[in-house]
């Protein structure tokens, strides 16, 4: 029979101040850990949506991103000779989408418009909706006659002026008014942070005669590597990558941010481990006679060890629950929207940080580990107590 849980709980709250202070330390560490995990999750899942293995992005040779790539129309037409290109079942046309990338500066909603972000605007044709199957219209699409755009849901939530009916000022002189006709969703992928317009209209507004990039879909069983080689080859001479590869290369700033955050988190975890060890040592020291008495009445060393580990885990879990609550409250009050700049693309990727049960469970597990490691030494000392001399201690 092992020591009852209620015993441990009551022991913890005999020393209220120490317990509460240690719980708060653990809570702070868990709050930060949960936030970081949710943030990393949000960006990773956004980039994972863009990981379609059958979609190839074509850029000019040497271009680092769509925003600084240029593809003349006749070079684009050469892409039709690709052998693994998918075709539309009903019309027989190749699933090949020419696209133009421009940008527009919009105020961020989360700091009440104090800073502006460069939002990507993509000029597309109807083919784009077939080449990018994850794009779902939520409402009407842009008209081909009138100057209209559709805004991605993530962009509409984070930047000002993208509600249905608003007018965006775009164009070479900034004087062409484009009406926002509707929104679209892209399963949280990077394209949801963009604004889409009709390609010919955009080309005339910006006085461009060339496309920026092209996307194509491979047919069933099509070989991505072979197609990329063919595109790089002497017949076409453009550069290509699968969509997944392209977006992975754009995440440089994000990697740096995560690295800094993880260094910080590691330091905090070490501090929490030592704080828990400190508290547990003082608990053990204060209860030597009690431990000796428990040993006398028959509880073995192992049970004493397990008992102190349990107390530490209880401490950590309580801190963990409070910390998760703090993190959720922070996200709800301060806002869970962030956007990050691609140094190459010069446009922002907007995403929402959401706390889901899996993240909370991961954080609680991590903090339980911290509690176990922290309590190891004090619990061993408690277990190794010399019963007879401890009984005589004041």
């Amino acid at each position, binding site marked *: 029979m092992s020591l009852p849980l209620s015993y441990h709980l009551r022991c913890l709250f005999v020393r209220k101040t120490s317990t509460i202070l240690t719980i708060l330390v653990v809570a702070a560490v868990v709050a930060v850990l949960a936030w970081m995990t949710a943030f990393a999750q949000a960006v990773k899942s956004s980039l994972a949506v863009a990981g379609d293995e059958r979609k190839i992005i074509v850029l000019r040779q040497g271009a680092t991103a769509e925003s600084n790539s240029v593809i003349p129309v006749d070079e684009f037409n050469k892409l039709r000779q690709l052998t693994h290109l998918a075709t539309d079942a009903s019309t027989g046309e190749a699933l090949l989408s020419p696209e133009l990338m421009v940008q527009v500066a919009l105020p961020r909603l989360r700091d009440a418009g104090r800073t502006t972000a460069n939002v990507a605007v993509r000029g597309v044709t109807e083919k784009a909706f077939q080449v990018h199957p994850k794009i779902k219209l939520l409402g009407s699409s842009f008209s081909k006659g009138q100057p209209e755009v559709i805004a991605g849901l993530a962009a509409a939530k984070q930047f000002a002026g993208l509600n249905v009916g608003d007018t965006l000022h775009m*164009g070479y002189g900034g004087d062409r008014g484009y009406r926002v006709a509707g929104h679209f969703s892209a399963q949280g992928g990077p394209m949801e942070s963009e604004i889409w317009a009709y390609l010919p209209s955009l080309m005339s507004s910006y006085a461009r005669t060339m496309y920026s990039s092209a996307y194509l879909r491979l047919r069933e069983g099509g070989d991505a590597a072979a197609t990329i080689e063919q595109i790089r080859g002497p017949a076409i001479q453009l550069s290509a990558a699968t969509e997944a590869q392209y977006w992975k290369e754009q995440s440089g700033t994000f990697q740096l941010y995560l690295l800094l955050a993880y260094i910080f988190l590691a330091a905090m975890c070490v501090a929490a481990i030592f704080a828990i060890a400190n508290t547990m040592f003082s608990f053990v020291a204060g209860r030597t006679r009690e431990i000796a008495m428990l040993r006398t009445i028959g509880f073995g060393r192992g049970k004493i060890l397990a008992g102190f580990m349990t107390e530490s885990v209880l401490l950590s879990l309580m801190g963990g629950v409070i910390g998760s609550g703090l993190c959720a409250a922070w996200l709800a009050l301060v806002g869970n929207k962030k956007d*990050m700049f691609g140094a190459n693309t010069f446009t922002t990727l907007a995403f929402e940080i959401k706390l889901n049960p899996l993240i909370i469970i991961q954080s609680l597990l991590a903090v339980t580990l911290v509690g176990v490691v922290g309590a190891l030494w004090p619990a061993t000392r408690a277990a190794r107590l010399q019963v007879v001399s401890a009984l005589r201690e004041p």
Partner: protein
Amino acid sequence: MTLTYVLMQNLKRNPLRTALTAIAFAFPMAVFVAAIAFVVAMVRLSQANAQELRLVVRHKATLTNYLPEGNRRKIEALDPDRTRLKAICGMRWFGGRVPDSKIALTNLAVDPDTFPIVYSDLAMTEDETALWHRERRAAVIGSLPASAYGWKVGDRVTLNSTVPPYLSLEFQIVCISPNPVRANFFFFRRDYLDESLVQINAPSGRVNTFWIKCTSVEAIRSLQQQIDAMFANSPDETKSEDENAFVAGFIQATGDIPALMQAMAIVVVFIVALIAGNAMMMSFRERVRELAVFKAIGFPSLRVFFIVITESLMLALFGAMLGVVPASVLLLIFPGQELAKLFGVPIINQLRLSWPAVVGALAIAAFVGLVAGFWPAWQALRLKTVDAIRHVA
């Protein structure tokens, strides 16, 4: 028996607890000193910008839209006596990169005549300025590309532009600016760029921004309004902002690393205060009887208060030194410059050791030690000697 003796004895009484508390203190303080160093550097950067009194004019729709270079004359005409506007310099983004390199340079083509005046904080000497005016391919760079690529004054370097029409131009370095705040820059002459553009029949005579050196803060405000009003409802509608507002937009976009650092610093102070408070409470609880004995043999209450609070202060400072010293040494050996080169994100090169940050970190540690020790010390002050002597820990 001196105060110091008593304090040292108290800390040595339970060496394990002292060690654990000190280490638990040290790790967050190490992070804190780095975060504070970064925040201090950002504040210095924004102060340096504010001192320069520069106004940035860009196209209202987006920074990447062009403005005609002729607008410079129109803006100059707003202030013919030069009481508010000292000089105006048009800049065009070239976005040049060294072939096969990941580092993103802030590479701009600038008007050669007014550049040394508008960017006077680059501290170009008279000879360097003369060379800039004389040499058609002159380039002025910051310390980051110079150290990353091993360039010296007089070197010929080539950059490939990452914006249309993708020129590849050769430059000659005339000056490497020592200014740490402008480390990532590469400026060259816009007339050289325009000649090269004309040769390939690409449109020339365009700029992305006008940088205006003003005479005072009021001059910035009044020029800002006048310029935006002058170009309103024209194809070249402008948005003018001072340098700090302009830079803030970029900083926010790189994941807002400064805000992350600030948040880290605050969380650290919070955690460290809790750890110190916990340790002091534990130590006090064990010594209630001993402190009562002190009072009984004649130590005044205030002196007992000082004993406890100074002990907390010493513990905090000891733990802080344990964390700050290794972190400072690490920052000295591996400054943020290296990280900037690795990730190609230039802002992180502001992460380097700064003495105000170290002093600030120690001051915060001392403050935390005082605050954490206050409650136990106060209780020691108000200890009723008679009851406390009977206390069983």
